[in-house]
């Protein structure tokens, strides 16, 4: 029922329904905002999380918005909770994207974390300051091409042990 | 003879106070099915604390603490311990009441100087708790003083020798019950251990006390414990002819306090005040009225 409505309103949307209560939608990056507002009006007003996947071989970052109805009765005719996964792909080197804070204020920390960990620059985000990390990294740590072992060796290895330390 | 008493009664009080602390930790451990530290553990702690170089927050930080311990030491001179009562004739119960005030005041000034909010919260709780138990305590003490028509504590003790323990003589029964109800608060045992609560306000006024300061603070705590018990035994349980019986009576009161300490959770400060100002104050007030009516 919701599937037909989505197909009619949006043209280049692909919908898959593998699990019982999980609906996967994927769309091009400029259609995301309209789908988000459409779903929000339908009653799916709770943004669980925005996560990001690094497809390094086809040089793309995939943003996943996970939505659901916060209160069951918000959505008429809804038997049990339906989670919607909205996916989109953006280019991997110097990625830019528009922020969704206007629709979901809760998206602010998630977008800051993705900016920090994957380097995605969200335009219009009020404060893209680091959320969790203490130090600054040239390659964002969660990207696949970030070599943790190498990073650990040259950052922590380079700290000299205090003289005469390893005698006992 | 008088000089020896003057020197040794504070030392004796310190010794017994420290012994009580060690015994308290042992008994608490035993109640919780643990072995618990040796009884001399507070002594070991004090030796270790004295050897640590700690931080000081200024002159008032040092002097306030020294004043508070000195104040508690001086009280032990006024409290008769069995027959040893070195200075109890140069000012009676009123002087003791006001001397009991120097300890908390000195501690409050020195921990106020440590500029730590935990300490300030701890002091405001200590003074509020003191306000809480002081109301019924004053009623009880006034009832005693009017019943025995004297303000000197040695006279109260000697009068009790013939009229029996003042807790069980007719007009003072109510005051005795009220005193028992507020004793945990005066000793600072668990239900009313609101002041140095380690979990909530990281041990209140003691938050900035390092080595020697913590040693003085534990001694002051031990002395306050000793004074609370010996005051109760002198006023309510008739004091004793010789120090040994007096010490045994103190042990009984001590175990009473520790059992209460081991069992009760900690009250919030306003719950503590509400409790102290409700039933114990009512009973103490009735006790005073009873004494006035029957006494005059």
């Amino acid at each position, binding site marked *: 029922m919701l599937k037909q409505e989505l197909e009619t309103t949006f043209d280049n949307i692909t919908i898959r329904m593998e699990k019982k209560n999980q609906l996967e939608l994927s769309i091009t990056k400029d259609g995301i905002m309209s789908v988000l507002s459409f779903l929000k009006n339908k009653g799916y007003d709770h943004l669980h999380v925005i996560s990001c996947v690094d497809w390094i071989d086809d040089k793309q970052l995939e943003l996943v918005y996970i939505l659901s109805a916060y209160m069951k009765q918000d959505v008429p005719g809804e038997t049990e909770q339906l989670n919607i996964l909205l996916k989109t792909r953006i280019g991997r080197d110097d990625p830019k994207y528009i922020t969704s804070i206007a629709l979901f204020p809760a998206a602010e920390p998630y977008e800051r974390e993705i900016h920090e960990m994957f380097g995605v620059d969200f335009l219009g985000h009020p404060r893209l300051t680091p959320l969790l990390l203490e130090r600054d990294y040239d390659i964002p740590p969660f990207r696949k091409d970030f070599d943790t072992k190498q990073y650990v060796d040259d950052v922590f290895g380079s700290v000299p042990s205090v003289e005469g330390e390893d005698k006992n | 003879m008088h000089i020896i008493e003057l020197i040794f009664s*504070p030392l004796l009080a310190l010794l017994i106070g420290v012994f009580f602390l060690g015994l308290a930790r042992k008994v608490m451990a035993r109640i919780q099915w643990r072995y618990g530290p040796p009884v001399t553990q507070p002594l070991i702690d004090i030796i270790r*604390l*004295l*050897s640590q*170089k*700690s*931080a*000081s*927050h*200024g002159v008032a930080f040092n002097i306030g603490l*020294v004043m508070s*311990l*000195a*104040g508690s030491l*001086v009280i032990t001179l006024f409290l008769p311990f069995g027959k040893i009562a070195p*200075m109890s*004739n*140069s*000012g*009676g119960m*009123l*002087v003791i*009441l*006001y001397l009991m*005030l*120097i300890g908390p*005041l000195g501690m*409050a*000034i020195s921990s*106020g*100087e440590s*500029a*730590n*909010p935990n300490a*300030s*919260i701890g002091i*405001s709780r200590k*003074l*509020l708790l003191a*306000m809480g138990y*002081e*109301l019924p305590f*004053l*009623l009880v003490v*006034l*009832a005693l*003083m*009017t019943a025995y*028509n*004297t*303000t*000197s504590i040695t006279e109260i003790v000697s009068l009790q020798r013939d009229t029996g323990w003042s807790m069980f003589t007719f007009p003072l029964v109510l005051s005795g019950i009220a005193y028992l109800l507020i004793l945990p608060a005066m000793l600072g045992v668990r239900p009313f251990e609101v002041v140095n609560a380690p979990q909530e306000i*990281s041990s209140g006024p003691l938050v900035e006390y*390092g080595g*020697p300061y913590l040693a*003085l603070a534990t001694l002051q705590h031990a002395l306050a414990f000793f004074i609370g018990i010996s005051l109760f035994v002198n006023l309510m349980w008739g004091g004793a002819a010789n120090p040994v019986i007096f010490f045994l009576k103190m042990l009984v009161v001590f175990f009473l306090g520790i059992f209460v300490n081991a069992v009760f959770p900690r009250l919030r400060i306003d719950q503590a*005040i509400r409790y102290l100002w409700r039933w114990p104050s009512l009973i103490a007030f009735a006790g*005073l009225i009873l*004494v*006035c009516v029957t006494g005059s």
Partner: protein
Amino acid sequence: MTGMEILLLVAFGGVMLTYILGRISSSLRNTFAVVLSLVLVVIIALMYDKTGETIFYRGFFGIPMSFRIDALSWLFAMATSVLGCLSVIFSLSYMSDRKNISFYYSMLFLVNAGMLGVVFSGDLLSFFIFWEIMSWSTFLLISFNRGPAVAAGLKYIIMSIIGSMAMLAGTISLYTNYGTLNIADLSHLTVSASPGYQLFLLIIFGVAFGIKNAVMPLHTWLPDAYTEAPSPFSAVLSGMLTRMGIYGFLLIIYVVVGAARFLHAADSTVSSFNYVLAWLGAITIVIPTFIAMLQNDAKRLLAWHGIGQGGYMILGIAFGTNMGVAGGIFHTLNHAIYIVLLFMSVAAIQYRTGGVRDLNSLGGLIKKMPVAFIGALLGICGLIGVPLTNGFVSKWMIYKTLISGRAPFLAFAALIGSWGTILSVYKFLHNIFLGQLPEKYRDIKQSPFNMKLPIIVLSSTILLFGILPGLPLRVINKIVVSFGFDSLNISLWGIVSESGMLNTINLFAAILAGLIAVWLFFRIGARTIPVKQDDNYAAGAAVPRDRYSYTAKYYDPLFRMISPYLKDIFNTFYMKIADLTGYLSNGIRKIYTGYVGNYVMYIVLFISLMIFVQMKWSPW
């Protein structure tokens, strides 16, 4: 020209001279003011232990106006002049940046002279005149810095006028009954007076002195007056001026009515009046002290304590035994010393922090102003009555009389009052001096020397009177004997009474030995490292600037419990009366419309009314 006439001439002359000199040059005026106050102190000191009476003026309808000096008036005069001198020295630098300072100094001397006049007056007429001079000059000084101070001054002057009118009525009734106003003669004549008349006298004069001494129902003017007055003057105001009420009570109860002789007679009205007064004193101790605990303005907190401590004095005096009266007088002296000290330390803080009195925004000033801290510390120790301070000895005497006089409930009110004082006074000390120093007071300088001198002098007198109470008690013993009581057994360091003695030298020796022993024990511990205020335990985090202090709403748990009971009902009651009279007088004002026609109409109407009455009933 006995010593008293010279003294009052110098005092009143000084008022005009300071004003004129002020016009010429301020430094000349300052030196003259200090010299004048010192001269006053010396003159009074020379008149120690003299009693006598001289008539100095007969012109007022032939009623002889005389001066009288005895032990009581000497003590009060001495206290007034010494405290006046200290506050003049203190206000040299405090008032240096204000305008019309010469007016302030001349008024200060006028108040001083008025108080000396009250204390030395031998008859009720001169007593009343000097009383009015004192009240009016106080009004001018309270409303010195304009704004809300004028309202506080107005409130003060209205209540003290009511008191003076009551006193005037009493004086007139005395004059009509006995034809003389001389206090010495009156004390012989009133013995034969009927109990009802004695009670009337006591109540009339009691109202006048009760308002001045802020006994509970008549206390509402005091908090506003103390807070709005300039600090050095509010020190004098709280120290000596309000205690003129106590002088009045002593005068009326023990001299004019001469109660000492028959206080314990069963039917005597005086003992019933004293009993009611004692209960008023007890209430005056408890309620203001708890209200003081909840104040956030330093001076208002001290003002409420001024009322509370007044209760102790009333309690001591109203309890008619020799120890009680001696305790009451000694407490008046002690209170004068430490309340002036506390107001001066608050003034020193105000002078340095630009007039800040709010307890929630100060903190950590002990490192910057140690002398003010020592003064405040000793002041509050005296206020609480910590052993070794003067407050303790006088409170001990008052408690001793209450307990041996079998009045445990009064003693309970007094003791609870002192515990309430501890809480509120520690909040005063903690919020100003202890805790974290705010950023903006980082570079405060020490208080200037002429502020430190009075603080040091007063602190040392607190300790001196605490350790050797015999010095003041010998003078007070003379007063008690002059009232007709039997003398106390006073030794240099305490009182020996039948039911237990107080020995402050032993106490001092014991505490000193304890301090030395503990200090040595502390010294054998390891060396301590001085550390700044931001090297503090903050659960591993760095100490946040300016937000790491806990002073606001200091006793919040207690505040939530007792604040509903502490509404100042008397204040609201008096305010209602004030509004009512305002409304009524507004109605009357409407009669004067300003057109001459209306006035002519009123006259014609009145005459016709008179004619009508004459014709109907012909009363003449």
